[in-house]
């Protein structure tokens, strides 16, 4: 499929919003600027979900220099949909390990929260995905962000025309929000990682299932605006033990990458994750835009700890409209 086909065929205008290329500059307030002089990202080789995940996550958090003592931590996995044959969601073993890891690190409170993008049947999704048994086993609270109480936030960037969006209070009240995406390619945005995963905090009760209003405003644009609005301390743990390539985020095929990626700068984490998929982050529209003011995508500004990218990088297939993203960046 050629890029033109994609543009014409895209349901809902994400594609229309992308026609014409890059973002204009100065679309963010000075207060939204969060780039640091450098960002630390930890790449950890993890061969399987049977590996000692708790220890690896504790190690990853510590290597990032993050302190969680006494903080309320919100874990936001990717649970958009369930397919028994697929690898759509963050593996529940990783969520379970993160709960345990943050407990060991003396978090005051841990909540798992998600606003699934397609289905409203939470009981089904939680049980079928295996997350319910994790929640029960670890006695951890789950919040459906689609129906949580909400508060409006003015957006400090203006890539979309929203101006403001409603966010779940559970997210806004957390001391630390941990985005836990699956390492996946995406048929509208190129990749879906810790920044795109935050689509799940947008409440469906207001914006629908799917959260199509974000697509109309442009997926890349929405990703940037949502992430610029979430100014609380953030952390990311990317489940790349088994990822997804091709027609993601739902219908792609599994791809073993054997990696967990950690970091406090979601932009730097996603840039590193993209490189691990042999995708050039500077060619991913939302990463390029976020790299201007929300975080670092340049290699020289990312202090990488752990395994070198070259040792673990895998060639993730992308659908033809995104072939131009391929590269080492």
């Amino acid at each position, binding site marked *: 499929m050629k890029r033109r086909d994609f543009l014409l*065929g895209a*349901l809902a205008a994400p594609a229309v919003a992308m026609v014409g290329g890059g973002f204009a500059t100065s679309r963010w307030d000075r207060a939204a600027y969060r780039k640091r002089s450098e960002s630390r990202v930890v790449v950890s080789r993890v061969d399987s979900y049977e590996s000692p995940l708790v220890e690896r996550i504790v190690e990853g958090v510590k290597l990032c220099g993050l302190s969680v003592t006494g903080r309320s931590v919100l874990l936001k996995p990717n649970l958009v949909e369930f397919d028994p044959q697929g690898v759509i969601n963050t593996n529940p073993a990783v969520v379970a390990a993160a709960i345990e890891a943050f407990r060991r690190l003396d978090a005051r409170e841990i909540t798992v929260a998600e606003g699934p993008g397609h289905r409203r*049947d939470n*009981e089904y999704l939680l049980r*079928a995905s295996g997350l319910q048994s994790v929640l029960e086993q670890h006695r951890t609270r789950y919040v459906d962000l689609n*129906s*949580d109480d909400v508060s409006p936030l003015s957006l400090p960037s203006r890539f979309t025309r929203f101006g403001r969006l409603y966010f779940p209070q559970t997210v806004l009240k957390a001391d630390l929000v941990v985005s836990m995406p699956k390492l996946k390619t995406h048929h509208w945005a190129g990749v879906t990682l810790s920044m795109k995963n935050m689509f799940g905090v947008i409440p469906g009760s*207001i914006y629908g299932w*799917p959260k199509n209003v974000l697509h109309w405003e442009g997926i890349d644009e929405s990703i940037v605006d949502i992430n610029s609005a979430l100014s609380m301390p953030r952390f990311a743990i990317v489940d790349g033990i088994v990822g997804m390539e091709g027609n993601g985020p739902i219908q792609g095929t599994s791809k073993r990458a054997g990696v967990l990626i950690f970091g406090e700068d979601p932009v730097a984490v996603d840039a590193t994750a993209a490189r691990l998929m042999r995708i050039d982050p500077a060619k991913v529209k939302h990463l390029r835009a976020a790299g201007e003011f929300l975080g670092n995508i340049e290699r020289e500004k990312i202090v990488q700890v752990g395994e070198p990218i070259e040792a673990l990088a895998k060639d993730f297939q992308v659908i033809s409209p995104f072939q131009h993203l391929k590269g080492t960046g």
Partner: protein
Amino acid sequence: MMLPAALQFLQKTQNADGGWGAAPSRQSNTEATALALLALTSWSEASAARIERGLQWLIELQNSDGSWPIHRGLTHGSWATAIATLALAGFDDHRAGAVKGARWLLRHRGRTLGWLASLAYRLIPEKMAVQLDPDLRAWSWTPDGFSWVEPTAYALVALKRLNADVGGSAGQHIREAERLLYDRMCSGGGWNHGNSNAYGVGIPPYPETTALALIALQDREAEPANRVSLQRLVTMLAEIESGLSLSWAVVCLSVRGQDVAYLQRRLVRLYARSGFLEETRVVALALLALSEQASPFRLVAS
């Protein structure tokens, strides 16, 4: 078949303002309150005082244009208008408010994909990533949004219930929305949120949206698409392990006069296992699914 614990839960979790939240201690919202009212009015054991307070919450929240926001603090009309309209339609004294809600629905349908997409679909349909009719309009989750299965199903039920009172363009819009549902049907029958395919690959249906669409299309039983989708739902039923999907399936089959006693027993067992995660709308739907009274979702005489 009664589920006393569910009835007790629903009554106990009514907020002080008279409405219900999505879960206990959450802010009252229109969907949960409307479904709770539909559920409580289907059981004679329910407290009349609680029903009255819930009704007052719903009446007070209705906008002057006939719509309902999803909750207090928001003002714009929402997709939940259809469910609130349906709930209000059950009270003879408040039918005028329901008709007002129905008329708002007729004025606020979803958007098309626009002329450019429409042209592209006509000229090069094989190159479109998602196969659908871009010109059909029904109902959306958001004002001026694209049309999706669930809000369309709710609006269809409400409008079909009130069609005689609403008049005007109701019939025409109902027919178009029905066409949209059939257009969005998954290959082999059934519905998901509203995308039956992407990049040439079929996307499977969900039981809850399949049941909902079939409820909205129950007066179109001659359509082969209904038969194949009903069969798909029955197939999916074997795997359903959740209160929401099973409740909608029971309502879907019971409005068609089918024996659902075994499914109702399963629903009771499921409630004992999970309490339906204390989600108000699911508990309310289960109570509706268990009631012997005529369902508010029944559109044709049995």
